[in-house]
């Protein structure tokens, strides 16, 4: 176990391993799971999961593909039934008091899907009216929030993936929920769309809505969330404030006129394992004090240095890989880090 993992687990232990011992620091928990377990045949998709989301959090729910994130969301929203354990949402036990819980929750699971022959407005009206008439003003309001006002009367069948994601958020907001659960809302969006959705999530958080954001994009969680949990194979690995989850990173990104030559120079200075190539950058494990010497050596070797910038995201990324990649049948994290990092969406791809 690496030092980072050990530190993180100490953090979780400090917070308490049982939910009743976990603290929201004086804030009220809005969503808790209690030994939540879901078994599909021989596969234990969720394994005695205890986690706690505090009111007002923008809570990151992080894990690699297949970690069980969507299954947990389905359990929390009552779409599937737990094998054992339960969730508590806004004071209502799920699945026992599901209707009470759903009055306070909005969200979507997987890609939000709508009736393709109906307009965005009619889809919202139809969904909203299931619990009583919904005002046209509210529909206008949520469409405005997600930037779909101009396409309100267009058939959803003509919408792009990004527009459907935004309409999914609109329907989640329709009954002014206290908690919004979003399952990878930026999945499949272009950079502009991702930025818009993240901005919206931040604004929702600022307006007092608790957001539960499932993602496998590490930097997304880092950018947007205040607290996070990392799960792997249906088990909680660690949870806590994002700022505390992330170990201090000493990595810097280096861009030069000759990356190959620069890599040789830097490997000679810091060791081969401390230098990785990623998207045209060299990621160097070097603390702040070593940077002037590093630049001096590069210049001395005739390499034109174009940029040296801190790479704080490396901390969470490395941490994430170490937490979730310690399976016995896989190569050790250190050995496969570069390869795995490329496979992880939003990582060093």
């Amino acid at each position: 176990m690496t030092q980072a993992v050990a530190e993180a687990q100490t953090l979780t232990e400090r917070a308490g391993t049982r939910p009743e011992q976990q603290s929201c620091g004086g804030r009220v928990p809005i969503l808790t799971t209690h030994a939540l377990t879901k078994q599909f045949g021989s596969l234990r998709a969720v394994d005695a999961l205890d986690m706690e989301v505090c009111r007002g959090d923008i809570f990151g729910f992080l894990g690699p593909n297949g970690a069980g994130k969507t299954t947990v969301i389905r359990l929390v929203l009552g779409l599937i039934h737990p094998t054992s354990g339960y969730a508590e949402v806004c004071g209502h036990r799920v699945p026992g008091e599901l209707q009470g819980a759903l009055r306070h929750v909005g969200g979507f699971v997987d890609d939000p899907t709508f009736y393709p022959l109906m307009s965005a407005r009619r889809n919202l009206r139809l969904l909203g009216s299931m619990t009583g008439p919904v005002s046209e003003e509210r529909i206008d309001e949520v469409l405005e929030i997600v930037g779909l006002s101009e396409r309100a009367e267009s058939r959803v069948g003509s919408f792009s993936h990004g527009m459907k994601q935004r309409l999914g958020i609109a329907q989640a907001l329709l009954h002014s929920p206290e908690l919004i659960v979003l399952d990878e809302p930026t999945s499949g969006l272009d950079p502009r769309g991702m930025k818009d959705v993240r901005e919206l999530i931040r604004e929702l958080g600022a307006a007092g809505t608790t957001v539960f954001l499932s993602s496998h994009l590490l930097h997304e969680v880092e950018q947007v969330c205040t607290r996070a949990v990392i799960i792997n194979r249906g088990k909680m690995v660690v949870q806590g404030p994002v700022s505390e989850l992330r170990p201090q990173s000493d990595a810097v990104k280096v861009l030069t006129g000759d990356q190959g030559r620069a890599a040789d120079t830097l490997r000679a200075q810091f060791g081969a394992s401390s230098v990785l190539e990623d998207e045209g950058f060299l990621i160097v494990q070097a603390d702040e004090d070593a940077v002037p010497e590093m630049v001096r050596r590069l210049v001395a070797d005739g390499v034109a240095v174009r940029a040296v910038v801190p790479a704080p995201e490396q901390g969470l990324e490395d941490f994430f890989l170490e937490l979730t990649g310690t399976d016995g049948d896989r190569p050790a994290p250190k050995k496969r880090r570069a390869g795995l990092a490329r496979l992880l969406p939003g990582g060093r791809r």
Partner: protein
Amino acid sequence: MTAGHPAHGSTGPRMHGRAWGPLRREWIKLLFQRRSYLIWGGAFALPFLIALALYLAKADPHGGEGPLFFERVTSNGMYVALAALSALLPFLLPMAAAMVAGYMIAGEAELGTLRIVLLRPVRRGSVLLAKWTMAIVYLAVGLVLMLASGLLFGAIFFGLHPMITLSGTTVSVGHGLGLIILCCLYGLAAMACIVSLALLFSTITDSSLTALIATIVIYIVVQVLIAFSYFDWLRPWVFPNYFLEYVSFFRDPIYWTPILKGLASFGAWSCGLTFVAYLLFRRKDVLS
């Protein structure tokens, strides 16, 4: 895209009228499905085609004979709707019932809308009941269209006259119309069984086509079985056995025994199948 005041302080949902919400939703959904209009169009067109065919056959001295009530159509347009019902009831109406009910849950699962619907704070039982009810309303609309078309084209081609019952007595046009409506309601009650069966399959599978086919296969198998005298013992227990008992309305006085037996069978099967569907749907893991 800006949140402004996104989640709080604006018009929330008013909770009155909640009971109608799922019903309204199902109805609007039906109106947005093209196949609804195909079936309704078929129900409206069939009496016209029957009336036209018999009108032309009447002119032809070698014109053929048709099923129940068909031979009487040429002398009285009142029988057009009844002839259309006897043509629809054995297959087209069960097919429509299986199609609409089979789609109700499985189709939404296929489309991916089921999970969005079930995230609204509405009980699954209410959702299921709304779907069952709307499937029945959908078929009722089809029957009303068939009835209206039958009377319209019956009047145009043959005129509307007092009807002769199967017992040989004559009843007025108004009385006859009342009997035809009772026949349609009986047919609708029969279809409730098909709707419940299809809805049950719809909760089991995530494919509307599978639900439709399973329902039709069971219906046909039962029909075939009860056609053999060896399976006479089965007849009282299966609902398709009573589908054509509506003719007893045209005895004078009305022969209630087979009608009531049929209605009891329809009620028992429909309630039983819907209850099982509810039990399954209540515990269904929505993974689609």
